């Protein structure tokens, strides 16, 4: 019997949202020094890409770790419906008191998708722009890549 392999399914989703990096824990001057342009009071937006990786056994009858329709529905309900064409600061309760940096967006998306019933959530990778991306894998410091 051949050696067991670890399989993950990855899927990319998109949402567009605005945010402002600003915290009441800092003075106005400190906010603008730390966050620069991102602290503009009226906010600004990005086209975000969310990469979701799940793992599990491949069901021999379907060839799938999880049915894509189930994953798509879950991600839409848990994340995209709440984030797409919204202001992250104003419309997503988690960011009322937490700065919506993409680090924190990653963590929030992981938290919202962790309960996916059909497979194990391995990690979330978010591209804020094509030039920067962030990953979060819960308690796994190296991204849980086995």
């Amino acid at each position, binding site marked *: 019997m*051949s*050696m*067991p*392999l*670890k*399989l*993950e*399914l*990855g*899927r*990319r*989703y998109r949402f567009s949202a605005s945010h402002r990096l600003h915290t009441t824990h800092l003075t106005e001057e400190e906010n603008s020094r730390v966050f620069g342009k991102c602290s503009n009071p009226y906010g600004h937006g990005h086209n975000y890409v969310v990469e979701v*990786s799940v793992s599990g056994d*491949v069901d*021999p*009858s*379907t*060839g*799938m*770790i999880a*049915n*894509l*329709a189930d994953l798509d529905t879950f991600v839409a309900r848990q994340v995209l419906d709440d984030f797409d064409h919204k202001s992250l600061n104003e419309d997503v309760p988690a960011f009322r008191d937490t700065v919506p940096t993409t680090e924190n967006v990653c963590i929030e998306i992981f938290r919202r998708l962790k309960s996916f019933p059909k497979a194990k959530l391995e990690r979330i990778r978010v591209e804020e722009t094509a030039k920067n*991306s962030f*990953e979060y894998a819960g308690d*796994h410091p*190296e*991204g*849980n*890549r*086995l």
Partner: protein
Amino acid sequence: MVLITRKIEFSASHLYHNLNFSAEENRRIFGKCNNPHGHGHNYTLEVTVAGEPDPVTGMVLDLKELKEILEREVMQRMDHRHLNYEVPELAGQIPTCENIAQVLWRLLDPKITRGKLHHVRLYESPDLFADCYRNGAAAAGKQ
């Protein structure tokens, strides 16, 4: 340890159908992918090999050698083929990204003798992919 990745693209057709399911179940579970005449994708395969660079050549393995392995094992087998009917390694399996990635791993792993196969990522489209790793292998960041 250094990771070295080579990317190739191949185009193939497939369809999802399980003979043990009713026509209605096949449609419900596989959706559009159950179209009896099949459909196709441009697949992108990323193959990552891990190893220490040779002190003389500075290489983990010669990329030319990896290119030849990928040509022989992947391109000749799958490029411009129907994955359900023309690839014996996939016979009896639903040719999903997950299953194709496993088959590719098992084809490539024994052929890569310099360095060690570390990661196979197969994209069916830019938004859908499967990752295959050796179970229990030490974690090492990629990307």
